[in-house]
């Protein structure tokens, strides 16, 4: 267990030992440093803009499971796919055309395919569990830290404890315990857990900072207000505030613990992004308010009707000439891509066993078509974003 004296004894001064403990990759913009504040809990200091995990053993546990995820992807996926293809061919099925109901009886329980899947799923479960256990065991200390920053600037935090949380948001997405809304430390767990997903390439928010650097702006160049929908722990919101320091940046998320953590982290970074607990389909902002509305991997986590409502809300809150840049798996080059049997099987496993509950729903939406329907001028192959050479871009007509 951590005691308060231990926790408050060490500060970001330790961060001067920046030596790439996490093997961070270089990025074009210089990341913001962490700033210790009264009540800050950093028992092992910081590595640039990442608070080091609070215990050496927890950090090493994470290191191992991150290494295992990288290794199983590199060494396991190819033989697993080869085995899958061979099994289908032996069963007289076409690996390009076979459907899930034909695939399951042939590959289910195959030792190699099952092993590679187990490496990934169990590694993920163990990481979530280890993180949750630490934060729960030291709950008072970490809850007090968040209380110390809830009303602190430079940015604002708007929590809504009376909010009606829609059921569709309450699943344990990515099998994260409690999901985005059900654990007081959803933000802490998500931040460190997804560092494992990002395979050690996002410890310094490199991916989010890169997306912020690629963010398109309205043709008139005016950027006074930006909205990041479904912001989770606020990494993109923070990066946008760094790129557009004079703009008012808002990150919104349904998860109270998520925006609390996002706000606390921005306080720590000295970044003045604002956060609000709110739904992307019901942001509570006025009409014609924002110059840029964006989101990052939000849409595949919501049902089809909600994706449509979110597009409509983005259109409502954008000012004429403002731009909508929703970044997701299929808002770029992946949309409509024909999937072979291996991809269908992988998609099923992600949906069923990674708790990506709404991903098939999302794939069913005519995303760009709905953007046009609500009145956007749509560029199907807009600027690059994330893993795609292009991403859909909408501009609200004047």
């Amino acid at each position, binding site marked *: 267990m951590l005691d308060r004296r231990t926790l408050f004894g060490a500060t970001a001064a330790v961060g001067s030992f920046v030596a790439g403990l996490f093997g961070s990759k270089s990025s074009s913009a210089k990341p913001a440093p962490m700033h210790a504040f009264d009540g800050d809990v950093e028992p092992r200091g910081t590595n640039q803009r990442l608070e080091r995990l609070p215990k050496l053993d927890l950090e090493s546990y994470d290191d191992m499971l991150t290494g295992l995820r990288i290794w199983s992807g590199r060494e396991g996926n190819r033989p697993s796919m080869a085995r899958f293809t061979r099994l289908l061919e032996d069963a007289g099925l076409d690996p390009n055309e076979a459907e899930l109901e034909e695939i399951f009886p042939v590959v289910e329980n195959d030792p190699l395919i099952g*092993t590679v899947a187990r490496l990934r799923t169990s590694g993920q479960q163990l990481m979530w569990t280890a993180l949750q256990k630490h934060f729960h065991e030291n709950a008072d200390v970490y809850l007090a830290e968040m209380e110390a920053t809830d009303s602190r600037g430079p940015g604002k935090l708007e929590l809504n404890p009376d909010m009606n949380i829609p059921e569709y948001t309450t699943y344990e997405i990515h099998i994260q315990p409690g999901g985005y809304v059900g654990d007081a430390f959803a933000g802490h767990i998500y931040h460190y857990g997804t560092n494992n997903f990002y395979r050690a390439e996002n410890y310094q928010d490199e991916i989010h900072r890169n997306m912020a650097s690629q963010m398109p702006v309205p043709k008139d160049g005016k950027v006074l207000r930006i909205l990041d929908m479904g912001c989770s722990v606020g990494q993109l919101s923070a990066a946008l505030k760094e790129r557009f320091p004079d703009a008012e940046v808002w990150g919104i998320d349904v998860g109270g613990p998520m925006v609390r953590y996002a706000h606390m982290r921005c306080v720590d970074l000295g970044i003045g992004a604002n956060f609000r607990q709110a739904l992307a389909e019901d942001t509570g902002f006025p009409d014609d308010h924002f110059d840029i509305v964006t989101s990052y991997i939000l849409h595949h986590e919501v049902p089809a009707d909600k994706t449509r409502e979110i597009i409509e809300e983005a259109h409502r809150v954008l000012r004429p000439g403002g731009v909508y840049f929703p970044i997701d798996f299929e808002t770029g080059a992946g949309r409509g891509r024909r999937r072979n049997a291996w991809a269908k099987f992988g998609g099923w496993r992600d949906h069923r066993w990674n708790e990506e509950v709404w991903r098939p729903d999302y794939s069913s939406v005519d995303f760009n078509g709905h953007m046009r329907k609500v009145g956007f001028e749509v560029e199907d192959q807009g600027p690059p974003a994330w893993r795609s050479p292009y991403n859909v871009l909408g501009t609200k007509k004047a």
Partner: protein
Amino acid sequence: MATSTLKTDRPTYASDFIPSDVERAVFLGNPVLDNMMTSLIALGAEVWSNRRRMKVLEALLADKGVTNEMIEQYMPTAEQEAEWQKDRDRFIDLTYSPLLREGDLPVSAAFTRDNK
């Protein structure tokens, strides 16, 4: 719906959630095999944690007056981390490569070699 197991009087801003049934997933045809693999992975993470701690200790022991606080605060150099990660990857390879074995012969299987 489920509720967080965290017991506290402080505000948490958490709500009820729908729990995943991933604990019931069987990927290997027998839940015992699935459970053994999960334990094996957890064991690997524990072993690696110990090894990594030892590396910190070894590095610190080169200096004088080693304290527990020093161990917790130690930040490896980029070169050290690169070296450690190489060792980690070797450890992973040795420990988990056997899991990728495509065993398909039952106890009763005849020899498959010509020179049996």
